[in-house]
């Protein structure tokens, strides 16, 4: 019944191609809204009753024959994806107004249709119990997101990046097909549940590594992250938000789904994920501080968050393997909370970058500045995201990090088996947390604070209401988790229990709830003290002289906006001590000796991801080499081709004779 309803919805999406440009996005929004309300309703029902909701056997022309169901794990991801999707659709409404003239009708239709397709593909992937259904949805996700990225395909750079994305995603897809088909040769039927019997009887490490390659490429873990900055900077902002907030989480869903069936060799897998998490996190955060392009910055920041999530998943598996149940549950709950908060704040940050992009016509931080006065609403919302992204109290970013830290600290205090792992995780989290503050204060202050670095920004105004409304749903999550941590902890714990396959002790859980309630108390007290202090100050200042005077310039009376601290100089200190991870290129035309009055000179500084060039260099070269070798058989002469055909038959003949086929 429900599936048929969804099918009708998807069929309605065809309408997008028929109506006027103006209404295309409205139809898209309506379809996604109805879809998300249905799936959120079902998902909430699953979480509330703790029962798997069986959609039964599907038998229709799109999905074919297969089983679909929503269990706890897919329910939470469904809620995340649906909330992100509806915000993205609302945002796209506002965003499209500026593009109605410049794009052709078919471009707009294709884009809108792909939005719908991507959303339902993700929901389908989450609800599939059946592997073929899952793989179809997975592939549909890749193709529709590819179509979304090439919205601005006039630019050759964007086309190139989009193709790069498509190729890499298919490498991941092949890995998944290989992994699933290996399993299917041993166990039947082709559902996720049969993974359990496979992993129980075989060593899970080789297959899990292939799965990790397939899912990790979507999630963007360390050596597979190279597509992130390129794709996010190529795509329109709402698409980047969709991909970062929703599609990435589906990648992590895949890893969690597979992990929930593995019960042996957990220590090795846990340590591997833990190390991958640390490298991903540190790499992401260090490179994010060096970025100048806002979207590339967000891409690396999202890599850092994935790092923290993988670190927590690793810690949780190690906890499970060594019988440290409490650490396992805390870390897994922290990982899921981090996932939720990442989806929420990263969606919002891409929205605000989108606002900046359309209003100030630039994504280069060094060409922005002082936007807080011109776009106050965007600035305020970005500020909230900054607090979440840095994991600062009182919002949800802090709660998720608190959970992970809590598990680690508790392990240290209990002097359990994993003290060394816990302290390594602690140091890594602390370092990442410290550098994130540097990265985000740079991001915020270079864009929004100070004076505008370019004169053409004088007439900038804030964006319309549609785009501001889009911020609300993720904001609700951010504030709700921040101020009701214990409630969300109790909601999410059963989900982590199903992933880990162990039930937490009631006393342990109660101690966490008490702590979280105290965290909330302290947060509320802090917010009240801050508000009280601010009101006190303004009241005191009312009766006194408040004057305006230019910023202190050490006696210099003609400061210009070009004398402000730039983003490059803000992160210079960190770059000086971490030279090995980025490939720096400085191009400058030197001042000649005879130039008494120097002319205008330019300096171009680039920080490239070291792994990026390393990765593309060798395998592109290898493909070229193989290609060249193979192409020698192409001679353009008919007699050669006849010879090839003859040889083919001879080979087949010989193989049959020796019974090799």
């Amino acid at each position, binding site marked *: 019944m429900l599936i048929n309803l969804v099918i009708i919805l998807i069929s309605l999406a065809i309408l997008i191609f028929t109506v006027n440009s103006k209404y295309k996005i409205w139809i898209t929004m309506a379809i996604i809204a109805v879809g998300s309300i249905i799936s959120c309703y079902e998902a909430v029902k699953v979480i509330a009753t703790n029962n798997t909701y069986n959609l039964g056997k599907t038998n229709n022309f799109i999905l074919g024959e297969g089983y679909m169901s929503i269990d706890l794990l897919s329910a939470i991801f469904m809620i995340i994806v649906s909330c992100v999707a509806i915000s993205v659709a609302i945002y796209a409404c506002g965003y499209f107004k500026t593009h109605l003239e410049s794009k052709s009708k078919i471009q707009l239709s294709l884009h809108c249709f792909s939005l719908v397709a991507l959303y339902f593909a993700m929901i389908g992937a989450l609800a599939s119990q059946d592997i073929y259904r899952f793989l179809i949805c997975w592939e549909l996700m890749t193709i529709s997101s590819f179509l979304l990225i090439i919205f601005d395909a006039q630019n050759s750079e964007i086309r190139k990046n989009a193709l790069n994305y498509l190729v890499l995603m298919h490498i991941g897809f092949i890995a998944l097909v290989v992994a699933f088909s290996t399993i299917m040769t041993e166990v039947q039927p082709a559902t996720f549940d049969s993974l359990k019997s496979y992993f129980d009887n075989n060593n899970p490490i080789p297959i899990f590594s292939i799965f990790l390659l397939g899912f990790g490429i979507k999630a963007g873990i360390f050596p597979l992250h190279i597509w992130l900055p390129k794709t996010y900077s190529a795509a329109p902002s709402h698409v980047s938000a969709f991909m970062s907030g929703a599609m990435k989480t589906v990648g992590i869903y895949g890893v969690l789904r597979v992990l929930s069936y593995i019960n042996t060799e957990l220590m090795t897998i846990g340590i591997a994920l833990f190390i991958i998490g640390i490298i991903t996190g540190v790499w992401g955060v260090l490179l994010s501080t060096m970025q100048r392009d806002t979207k590339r910055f967000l891409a690396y920041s999202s890599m850092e968050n994935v790092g923290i999530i993988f670190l927590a998943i690793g810690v949780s598996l190690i906890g499970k393997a060594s019988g440290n149940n409490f650490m396992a549950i805390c870390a897994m709950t922290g990982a899921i909370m981090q996932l939720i908060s990442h989806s929420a704040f990263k969606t919002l940050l891409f929205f605000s970058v989108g606002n900046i992009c359309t209003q100030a016509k630039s994504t280069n931080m060094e060409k922005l500045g002082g936007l807080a006065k011109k776009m106050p609403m965007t600035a305020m919302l970005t500020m909230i995201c900054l607090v979440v992204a840095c994991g600062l109290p009182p919002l949800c970013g802090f709660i998720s990090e*608190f959970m992970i830290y809590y598990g680690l600290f508790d392990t240290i205090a209990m002097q359990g088996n994993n003290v060394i792992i816990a302290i390594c995780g602690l140091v890594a989290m602390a370092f990442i*947390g410290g550098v994130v503050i*540097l990265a985000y204060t740079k991001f915020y202050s270079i864009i929004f604070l100070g004076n505008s670095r370019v004169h053409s920004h004088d007439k900038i105004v804030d964006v319309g209401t549609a785009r501001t409304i889009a911020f609300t749903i993720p904001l609700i999550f951010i504030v709700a988790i921040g101020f009701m941590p214990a409630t969300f902890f109790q909601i999410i714990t059963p989900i982590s229990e199903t992933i880990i396959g162990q039930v937490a002790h009631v006393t342990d859980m109660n101690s966490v709830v008490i702590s979280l309630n105290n965290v909330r108390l302290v947060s509320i007290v802090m917010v009240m003290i801050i508000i009280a*202090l601010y009101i006190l*100050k303004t009241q005191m200042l009312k009766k006194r002289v408040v004057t305006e005077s230019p910023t*202190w310039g050490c006696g210099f009376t003609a400061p210009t906006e070009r004398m402000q*601290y730039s983003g490059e100089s803000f992160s210079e200190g960190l770059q000086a001590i971490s030279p090995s991870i980025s490939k720096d290129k400085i191009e400058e035309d030197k001042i000649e000796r005879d130039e008494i009055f120097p002319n205008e000179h330019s300096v171009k500084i680039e920080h490239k991801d070291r792994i990026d060039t390393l990765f593309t260099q060798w395998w592109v070269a290898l493909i070229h080499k193989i290609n060249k070798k193979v192409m020698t058989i192409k001679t353009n002469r008919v007699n050669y081709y006849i010879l090839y055909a003859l040889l083919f038959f001879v080979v087949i003949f010989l193989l049959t004779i020796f019974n090799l086929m």
Partner: protein
Amino acid sequence: MEQISTTIIIIILALLIPNTISLTKAKLAGRRGVRIYQYFMDTIKLLRKGAVYSPTTTAIFKIAPSVYLGASIVAMLMIPVGVLHPMFAFNGDVIMFCYLMALGRAAIILAAMDTGSSFEGMGASREALYGALIEPALFLTIGTIALISGSTNFSDMFSLIKSDNINMVIVMLIIGYISIKIFTVEMGRIPIDDPKTHLELTMIHEVMVLDYCGIDLAFINIANWLKGASIAMIAANAMTTAFALNIWLTIAFTIFVAIAIGVVESIYARAKMARNTTYILTITAIAMLIFFVAFILLKDIKL
């Protein structure tokens, strides 16, 4: 009652620490030094003044001092004095303490960048970097105390440590030493930063608040003192547990921390700015080392 007395003791110590440092420095330099309540009076004077704001600044500049002070007050309310329990005590409050300090730091960095001044940008950049690098050391130190005490709660942490083992006494003293180092970094004292410097280019903390005056500056000063007192109190508590947990001993150790910093500031020059990162990473390395030493000692491995 107990909680209120804890708070009052920390507030008094917060006022005493900057005075003690400057008095120590004055005595060692052969000067008479300021009155014991001079800093307090200075702040009272600032609180009576108006304000001057730059037209470049936004609301962030005006809110940041309140955020910094609010975060510091709440962080202070989590710190015990010897056996006296603090206002807020719960498992995992150590994490919240560290993050509240980070919140205050982020607020001041943003406020500094809000003025559009290159001097303040310089200070903000340095503060962000040093703050990021000192964070692991802070977590390691607290982690070591948690390991030894078996608690993740500031008020239990120090009271649960038994000082019957001479090895643990040494470990706790070294933790106290590292905490003093963390104090110098977080508060921008010598050798990281010289608070008495008069050149904007070489400052860290002072340059970030160049554009503040009046009530805002008073808020920032008070927040600085509270933050300093909280960290000094961790150091003092750690050193006290090495002997016997006693309120008077803790207070005496806090004063000792202040005097020690005063002495160091009198006999050392500040380090070159480029050397600071090495200095901070060394602190982290020592903290890491002491964690493993404590771990090995607790495992009772006979070497």
